[in-house]
């Protein structure tokens, strides 16, 4: 879907084969009911395919295919969407991006290398309400981080904390004393989340990631990247739900006619097809701009604007589009017997996890307003 260059096409087909063989629908359905969804050996294989390195500079052990690692990673995100695949793709890459860009040499040699190799999973604690105080040996962090993906499987979580110099990032090992996890339930049964409580967790001074006071700005950059990944996953899920529905309306008969001969249904399929194309188009453009570094600009045509526009638009219309696919399926569509729900769950999660469509619209609105009359 998103592969352009020959390198990307090879990467797409290798990755697709891996996802298809490891996560056929029956396996995803089984995992939805399983206690745990993470499988460490599989993730190491995934890392060997290159899924963990794309957002990291070569100097820090990473490397992209096309020069725009986010455009490359978009290919994997879209495959995840097409198959409702489980796996710590987002958090691991986001933290790798953070450590690769802002991490110290020690952090790159240590945690980042573990992440790149697929030995460690990481999570981005984007809903953090934590504070830090300095101690003689380092820093003591307390607070709550909500909705942390894969927390029980992850070795590290990147958390922004309020400290005297502003808001800064620390890398918290989840095995540290004082860390407690509360499992959450949710709409997507194969992506698992935990609330993480930090109660006086003591970290060395070397735990800071990036310049002190830079966390708000860095979180904003990570949000751009996360948005592109979510857009890719939603585009993949939409694509698949649409294809299933196109097939269904061709093969299902009512009153002696196939459903797809009814004009009202034809028009809805036309709308859905257009929404699928729009989702793919804005995902690709956002990846192109954010991944090439236009993401941190604040102009209303910048990468940040495109990422926010995509999340505002696809986040609103994508879940609605899959609901319409369900409606077109009739009763079977609202049951677990029909795979559509896998894509519905994945899409509505992505559409809200990092902020609601309304919040992304406001984010874009602020960019527009800040740009002034020039438009």
């Amino acid at each position: 879907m998103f592969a352009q260059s020959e390198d990307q096409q090879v990467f797409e087909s290798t990755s697709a084969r891996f996802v298809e063989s490891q996560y056929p629908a029956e396996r995803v359905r089984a995992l939805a009911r399983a206690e745990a969804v993470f499988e460490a050996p599989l993730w190491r294989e995934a890392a060997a395919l290159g899924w963990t390195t794309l957002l990291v500079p070569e100097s820090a052990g990473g490397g992209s295919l096309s020069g725009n690692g986010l455009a490359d990673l978009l290919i994997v995100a879209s495959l995840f969407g097409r198959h409702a695949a489980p796996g710590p793709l987002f958090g691991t890459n986001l933290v790798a991006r953070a450590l690769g860009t802002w991490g110290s040499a020690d952090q790159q040699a240590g945690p980042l290398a573990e992440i790149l190799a697929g030995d460690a999973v990481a999570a981005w604690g984007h809903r953090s309400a934590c504070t830090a105080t300095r101690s003689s040996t380092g820093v003591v962090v307390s607070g709550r981080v909500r909705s942390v993906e894969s927390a029980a499987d992850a070795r590290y979580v990147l958390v922004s904390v309020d400290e005297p110099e502003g808001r800064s990032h620390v890398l918290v090992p989840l095995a540290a004393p004082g860390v407690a996890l509360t499992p959450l339930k949710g709409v997507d049964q194969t992506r698992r989340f935990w609330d993480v409580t930090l109660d006086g967790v003591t970290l060395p001074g070397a735990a800071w990631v990036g310049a002190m006071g830079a966390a708000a700005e860095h979180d904003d950059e990570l949000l751009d990247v996360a948005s592109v990944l979510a857009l890719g996953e939603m585009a993949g899920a939409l694509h698949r739900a649409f294809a299933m529905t196109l097939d269904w309306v061709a093969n299902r008969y009512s009153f002696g006619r196939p459903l797809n001969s009814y004009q009202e249904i034809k028009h809805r399929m036309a709308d859905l097809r257009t929404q699928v194309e729009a989702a793919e188009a804005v995902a690709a453009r956002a990846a192109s701009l954010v991944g090439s570094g236009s993401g941190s600009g604040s102009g209303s045509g910048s990468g940040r604007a495109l990422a926010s526009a995509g999340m505002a638009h696809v986040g609103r219309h994508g879940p609605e589009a899959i609901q319409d696919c369900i409606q077109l399926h009739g009763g079977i569509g609202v049951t677990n017997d029909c795979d559509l729900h896998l894509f519905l769950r994945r899409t509505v999660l992505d559409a809200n996890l990092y902020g609601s469509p309304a919040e992304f619209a406001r984010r874009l609105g602020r960019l527009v307003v800040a740009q002034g009359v020039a438009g």
Partner: protein
Amino acid sequence: MSSTADVPADVPVEEFAARARAWLAENMPPADPTAGHFFFTDTSSRSDDHDLVRIDTCRRLQRLLHDGGFAGICVAPEYGGQGLTPAHQAAFNRELRGFDHPIEIQASTFIPCMAVLLEFGTEEQKLRHIPPMLKGEAIWAQLLSEPSGGSDAAGALTTATRDGDQWILNGSKIWTTGAWYSDWAMCLARTNWEVEKHRGLTVFALPLRTPGLEIHRIELLNGSVEFCQEFLTDVVVDDRDRIGDVDGGWTVMTRWLHHERTISGGSPYVTSTGRSHNAPNDGPRLAAVARELGTVDDPRALEIIGEARALTLVSDALVSSVTRKMQTGELPFHAAAMSRLFSGTSQVRKAALALELTGADGVMWEPGDDQRAGVGQSWLVRQAACIGGGTTEMARNVIAERLLGMPREARRDDGAFRDVPKGPR
């Protein structure tokens, strides 16, 4: 017959209402304001035992009504009813507000099953089946929809083949509410494949615990397992359990579907306040969610709560108005499709509003947080409101073709049913 308080058929409505008021106060338990509907509640955290207990309660409450002289208010005394008028039933339903009552077994058992029996049953069938219904002893289900069927009730593939005084049924039925705890069912089957589809159908009554009939539970996206699918393999039904004429099933179905539609109001056979307490995603429920999230004073939250409440109020006004106009003849009975359409689409919209209110807090939640779980789960299953009981697409067809008189859609199913295209060649 078996009612303890015999009421003369011409008792004034006010007098009857007063008696009901006194009787209810003395005999009926109060309603549980926190109880939700079966259907829209996530049952993944609720056991079958819990539901069975409630069904037993319903049976007991129905028996209580019966013994008090308030079951089958519009049903003739010879079948265990009270022989009174729809006005008496309406008065009773008004008095019922605030009291627990066997709401969960009204649909299916009384409408359409009892109503259809009253119209098409033989005297023997009525005497045999209706008294147990009114006493809460027999809960009935509808074996109507089929996996292949979609919106076309008349396209049933389940076949009944005559064998002397018996019929042998084979096929599959789906979307049967509560078949797993019900006792009897009314079933539509094809008895003639050589004629136009409406002309080859027959209706049967059959017990649900019978050889060859397997019941599977269907899991909905909110975790509910209330619906069932049935597989019929050489199920034997006596000809005396046939309802209506052989191949005359569509005549029965027309009334069956009519009675089914009266669930939103207007039926003389339903004992219910007509109020869905704790409707999911209505304004008050969203206000409670917003309170929990601490956003209840945000202008946008107030707007969402208001829009949801507006949908409920407008929907109620529409349904009442359409019902009244159908009664006065101002609108034909097909106008009921407008009520179906509006309530379906507004429920879907309310589910979307709820998620808009919660954002990230509606897609994941701590175990036991029923408010937020309700938002996410009912969002997932929301299209059920536009599918169950006839899709909104069918409602739009009915409004366009029957109410507005626009040209009918071309059909390819007017020859012998055997030759009707049922899938790609």
